């Protein structure tokens, strides 16, 4: 049952060197995308503790986007690969818990891919809109 007015709350964890720069480039190029995303800048996708994603969902965030440098481009040599391995496991685990796979998405965006960043945001927002607000895992007081 899709609520047409549902505006999901999305958190994006971006690495400083590629994806955050890509998001900046989307801005410099004035590529418009939905306002739902709150970006958290981290030095590297390898810094992202899986706990952050779990906590975000528990806090009622409807979707999480994680983005780092393309494989081979990591500013810290291999952080994105470390991240990739971790997230593959986490995703399986979340699906096992009944979290829709669309809620947690991973992508690679380089510093020169402003349009791609905007496109990914649109995709994530639309897909999360489709599945509706998060119910599972949310801690309610």
């Amino acid at each position, binding site marked *: 049952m899709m609520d047409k007015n549902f505006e999901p709350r999305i958190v994006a964890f971006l690495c400083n060197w590629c994806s*955050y720069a890509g998001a900046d*480039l989307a801005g410099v190029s*004035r590529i*418009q995308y939905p306002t739902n995303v709150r970006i958290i800048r*981290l*030095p590297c996708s390898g*810094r992202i503790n899986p706990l*952050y994603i779990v906590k975000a969902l528990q*806090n009622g965030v409807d979707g999480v986007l994680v983005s780092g440098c393309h494989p081979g481009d990591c500013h810290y040599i291999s952080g994105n690969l470390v991240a990739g391995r971790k997230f593959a496991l986490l995703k399986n685990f979340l699906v096992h818990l009944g979290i829709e796979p669309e809620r947690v998405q991973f992508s690679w965006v380089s510093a020169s891919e402003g349009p791609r960043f905007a496109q990914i945001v649109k995709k994530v927002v639309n897909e999360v809109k489709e599945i509706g607000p998060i119910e599972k895992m949310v801690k309610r007081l």
Partner: protein
Amino acid sequence: MHKRVLVVGGGIAGIQASLDLAEMGVEVFLLEKGPSIGGRMAQLDKTFPTNDCAMCILSPKLVEAAAHPNIKIIANAELKSLDGEIPNFRAKILKKPRYIDEEKCTGCAICMSKCPVKIPDEYNKGLSKTKCMRIPFPQAVPALPIMDRESCIYHQRGKCRICEKFCEADAIDFDQKEESIDVEVGSVIFASGSEEFDAAIKDEYGYKTFPNVLTSIEFERILSASGPTEGHITRPSDGKEPRRIAFIQCVGSRDMQMGNEYCSSVCCMQAVKDSVIVKEHLPGVEATIFFMDIRAFGKDFDKFVNRAKDDYHTRFIRARISAVEIDPATENLIIQYNSEAGSLIEENFDLVVLSVGLLSTAGIRKMAARFDIEINACGFARTSSFTPMTASRPGIFIAGTFSGPKDIPETVMQASGAASAAASLLTELPIRELREELPQEFDLRGEQIRTGVFVCRCGINIAATVDVPGVVEYASALQGVVHSQEFIFACAQDSQKLIGEKIKELKLNRVIVSACTPRTHELLFQKTLSSSGLNPYLFEFVNIREQCSWVHQKEQEKATEKAKDLVRMAATKAGLLEPLSRMSLKVNKGALIIGGGVAGMVASLELSTQGYEVFLVEKESELGGNLRHVHYTLEGEKTDRFLKSLIAKVKKDDNIQLYIDSEIREIMGYVGNFHTKIGNGKQTTNNKPRELEHGVVIVATGGEEYQPSEYLYGRDERIITQRELEERLTKQQSAIDKLGSIVMIQCVGSRNGQYPYCSRVCCSQAIKNALKLKEINPEVNVYMLYRDIRTYGLKELYYKKAREKGVIFIRYEEGEEPQIEAQNSKSEQQASNGEVLVKAYDPILQRNLVINADLVVLSSAIRARKENKILSQMLKVPLNADGFFLEAHVKLRPVDFATDGIFVCGLAHYPKDVSETICQAKAASARAVTILRKDEIEAEGRVSQIRKERCSGCGLCIEICPYTAIELEEGERVAIVNEALCKGCGACAASCRSAAIDLKGFKDEQILAALSVV
């Protein structure tokens, strides 16, 4: 005396040269004739091809120049005389009165607001008014007012003195006199710039007669958020938004009548950029550019032009406009032009923008004569292709448009190059040691959180979308926030000052700036914190421009809500920030230079001259790179001799360790401390070490000529490339003598779907060779089939010469490339008289042409080397879509990479000619010296931290760390971090099974705190 240099001119050229010199330990006097540094760049709205806001990228440089302890800015002053020689020049400077005591003035600008006299605002090209007592523009440096004596009522009529009455600092000085300043310097850089062409001279365009005819710089001001209309595009006659705008190119350039035969290089891209920006402001507007050739010869320029055509629907009409008429009823402007089909078309426009050229004036010529600087036929400082920043007078160097029109990155490269050249003369003198005295940091122990939130309007860049006062008010109620306010430009010097004052006054111990992107401005604000006694890591940056206002332009409410959310998250995180300290790293004084072409060799010699050890690695068995195939320049200089002497110098230089036939196997490490393994091919030159330690890397790996697959190349001997023609012109002229007809085809492998870039040098190279052909045999017919002739700058003179000599230029459109038919192949039958038929459509004659050619010469593209990919991965630096190395910033950091200590020059960066390559190579060495000359540099503050009591000594972090920065402590079985090696990626922290590791500045608790209030 220590090293000292005088820099004349405070535009971007002078600023860049000063900053580089200052970082090299040279004391700089930066002389500016206007009241503020910044030059023409300060008046631009945005910069092509990225549409970065000009002021946003310039302003941090202005602030940096003002704050640098090695730079003394002397504004509102002129150089009167320059005597002496290297290294003892004596300069006499005349500082004109501002009528302000600079020591007392705080720049509060109350005098400006109270001054009753309005005068035309020069910064806005007279399109708006300012006060007789005014600060030239919001980001001005020095941020001090200046009085216009001619319009001051007190000075003219003896009454008023209102400014004096309101000045609380008692800084007004009506009797201030000219001041003479003498300085002694070792060398001098002239970065005195050029002037804009006075469009009123070409009265057929109606400038100053018709109100709706503007110059390109005036239009930049109108586009600018800080301009006369605050970025609302209106036309002067009635204040209405224009629907149809025409740009007329080459006004005062490429114009024999005006005596300016050269091309001004920048106006094509400026007009294209303006056509795009105007469309962003007014979606319904139609922009038309009337041009002769679109000269999009720089890196990623053609892609930008294509975007303007395809996405923004800019109309490009190839026509030289002879006059602009007015419709008196509407004050619209009427332009008549001949279409390519020959019919006369008349169109009506609301606004006409004249793309005025850059030129040397009588004043500039006189100034040059006064200081014994020779100028060329076009009135610009004379330089040679091999010494592109050296003036005729020894000890004097040139940067920027004083030596000819050029865009910002070219200017910045020449400026850095000039800095290197100027410093190279002064190697005997000691450097000026700078110890920045920072105030003692506040002791925060036991203090409550006191956060200050500063929200930037960025002109209208943020404020047009985000409700800035709303965000400020919202922030004021957040926990821990004791102060919140807005700025028009948070990056401006006065804003920095105010933040510092607020820190002290309100005892702020956390600062949040909500503005543009931390990637460009974090350092600036952190410096402000440090100089105010606050640890620079007690700072949070909130990006509400690139990641909010610019990407949500149509959703103002939601964008404001997002900005508030982001500020709330930052405020929550800020409460948990801790002061951090940085450790110092030793700098190895060696440089690795990859590539032994001109770029690599020039950079090597430059560094060697300054006393640093160089490891020059060349994969081939001889030095020289691509220049081995170039035998003379367009200007007629012999490259062979230059190259020979360059190679000889490199070979006998004791500071240069040469590795021929060698390849890079591995590069590890970081700025100041790189370790490189060199593998060798066929031979080794004696037993040099194959493992090197060095402090910096310069990438000078060059490019390569495209081997065409089109136009029967390789299948018929009569079809050759320009490079092959040049070889024949030099070595087998007899074979050339017999030729009757030669066809040159431009853009082979350039500017197509797969390779959308322009190879920049081919037009000039073709014209150079065409002129040589005509010189050998004036009877020979040379046809050049081209798309646009891109002889930018002073190269244009040779295009004209080629036309005069009878070279026939025929244009073709993309998609209508010439066709080639070989009658019979000469390779099979040497004696045959067969010809090659070249078929092309002539858009002017509107018919197909068939040319019988004895020889067809293809101007084939310059390609990025395929090996770039491997090197880029080793160095962790990016390539652009075409495979060339991607610099840190296309405008202001043209030789740096985002990664410290690595630089690029030559064709590895983008196609360029020998003179531009030398400029960039010297620029790269200047930038390298700014690191090499320091014994220590500071490491990151945001590094990993291990809580020993939690560590189980499992060693997983050691495996994960890409920098081998973690090891197990002997005995205790716990991991320890080497802070010098740690780059702060945080992979160990996120992977630790016992949660024993955290990353300072991005701690788990800090991030989770931000997440808890999303």
